[in-house]
């Protein structure tokens, strides 16, 4: 009985180390300027993080927000790291032919624009994900909630989905 308990503990302990390990892989990838290592590191960190949490987290609105927030935190770091590497490569290329002042100014403007772009898109992503996760979880788990909450959730989700589809159609029409 003790042996089984020890094995279980060590497996749990080991599995909790995986996200940390893959986060270090991501950092190494960033420092070595290897985009593919960053990509694999982040994807594995997300998968292992979800695997661990799937064992302990019970279903609640707070936990849904918590897990979605972590997902988007990983994604935010991932996209920002890729952008920083791209900008660094560009700065290097531009510095070869100029004094550096101009390079810094364009780099600063690009960083601001990118940060704003990433932030707004991820925020929308968090919102959409929380809504959809709650709705689908309630539906799949067969939980019964108050009719009013469900209606509000349905309305908000439907509205956002409609907006996104409208935007997509708008873009497709523009392309033509």
């Amino acid at each position, binding site marked *: 009985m003790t042996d089984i308990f020890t094995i279980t503990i060590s497996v749990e302990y080991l599995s909790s180390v995986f996200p940390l390990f893959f986060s270090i892989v991501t950092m190494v990838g960033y420092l070595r300027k290897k*985009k*593919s290592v960053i*990509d694999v590191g982040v*994807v594995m960190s*997300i*998968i292992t993080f*979800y*695997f661990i*949490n*799937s*064992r302990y*987290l*019970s*279903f609640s609105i707070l936990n*849904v927000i918590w*897990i*979605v927030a972590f*997902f*988007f935190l990983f994604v935010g770091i*991932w*996209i920002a790291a*890729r*952008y920083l590497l*791209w*900008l660094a490569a*560009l700065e290097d*290329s*531009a510095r*070869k*032919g*100029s*004094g550096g002042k*101009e390079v810094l100014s*364009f*780099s600063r*403007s*690009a960083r601001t*624009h*990118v940060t*704003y*772009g*990433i932030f*707004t*898109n991820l925020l*929308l*992503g968090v919102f*959409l*994900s929380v809504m*959809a*996760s709650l709705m*689908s*979880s309630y539906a*799949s*788990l067969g939980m019964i909630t108050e009719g009013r909450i469900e209606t509000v959730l349905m309305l908000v989700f439907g509205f956002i989905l409609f907006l*996104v589809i409208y*935007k*997509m159609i708008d*873009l497709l029409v*523009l*392309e033509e």
Partner: protein
Amino acid sequence: MKVNRIFLFFTVLAVMGIIMGYLFAAFNEWVFLTMTISSLALLVISSRVMPPTSSLVSISRMSEEKKKEIYVDDEIEIKLFLKNEERRPVLLEVHDLLPSLVEVIEGTNHKVIKMEANEEKELSYKISCPVTGKLEIGPVKIRYRDPLDFFSNEIDPGEPMTLRVLPKTEEMQSVEIHPSYTKHWLGDIKSKSIGIGSEFFSLREYHPGDEMRDINWKATAKHFEPFTNEYEGEKSGDVILVVDGYKKGMVGTERYNSLRVSVEAAASLASSILSARNRLGLIVSGEYMNWIYPGTGKNHYHKVMANLTQFEKGGSWDLKGVRMLLEDFFPRKSLIIFVSPLTMMEFTETMIDLSRKEYDVMVVSPDPMKIEKKILDEPDEVAESFCQIERKNIIDRLWAAGTIVVDWDPDDPLEPALKEVLRYKEKL
């Protein structure tokens, strides 16, 4: 439009959520479901930032004062005018492609810019080129990247701009390069015979048909019969420049080499010869045999310069071709000026052969050792002394065959070296 790897990774995450939820059914499945939903949400949001495939940016390019020609090492400002044709702000990577030898002096040709909807922006940078030739500036590559880095789109609007880099010419006012044989047409060479010119030569009796302005009124008044002035004829001759563009004999680097200094010397000589109203012909033996029949005037000068800037170094043509051109197509009794570092024996033999025939031959030779010394940090002294002995032997052989040889250090101006040799030749 290109879908980046990160987009595929999110698709993998969405699928992994479903698979893991199915495999680990004993755990809290809703967590895996959240992973799938979050990934799908991001994929849906990516539609907001999809790059347009239609015209994203309109672009126009202009060089400083609309210049199409510059001299080697001169600076020129390139301006790009961009207009965002989209109804949303975009982040663009703008890269104006430049040939590898072009140096960016000020500003940058590779930049990231943010453009608001319908905004117009101007980008400028200064370049210089250390080698002669025809350059293609551009085309401009514009890459759109969305903030999530899911998609990218590369477009290249606009045509490349062609810029001609001319060799630097040296003004040689105190040197007069005259062919020994003059022809009938007007020039600057005093022919020591009666003809059309500006210098008084002699007087003679008036013949019907003489111009009124040529009548010497003083002599007419003295002798009570009309006398006419006669002038010293000013004529010109044919000069043919032969530039050694053989790659095999080239000394130096891509930026600074014997070919570059030879072309600069040839351009200076061409300018001086044409300004003295001589006819000038050109043969450049590089990858192809370029030649121009003798001519004169400003247009001819531009033709010569264009040929000097455009030729490619090489060596697929035999030197017999040069000799055949000179003997069969170009006028006899011309002054032939070879511009060569004298690193190839075949070239030297051709010069000796021609000087034994009815040609005046002059050689302007940029010293290849001086070029190499400038490039190398620690030159091999033994090898250098051997090369110097060899070069001296070649020069002595050429002098012995009646060729005028200008041994020129490319770091110094050509004019004094040329002047010294011509003075020495006159004394002989």
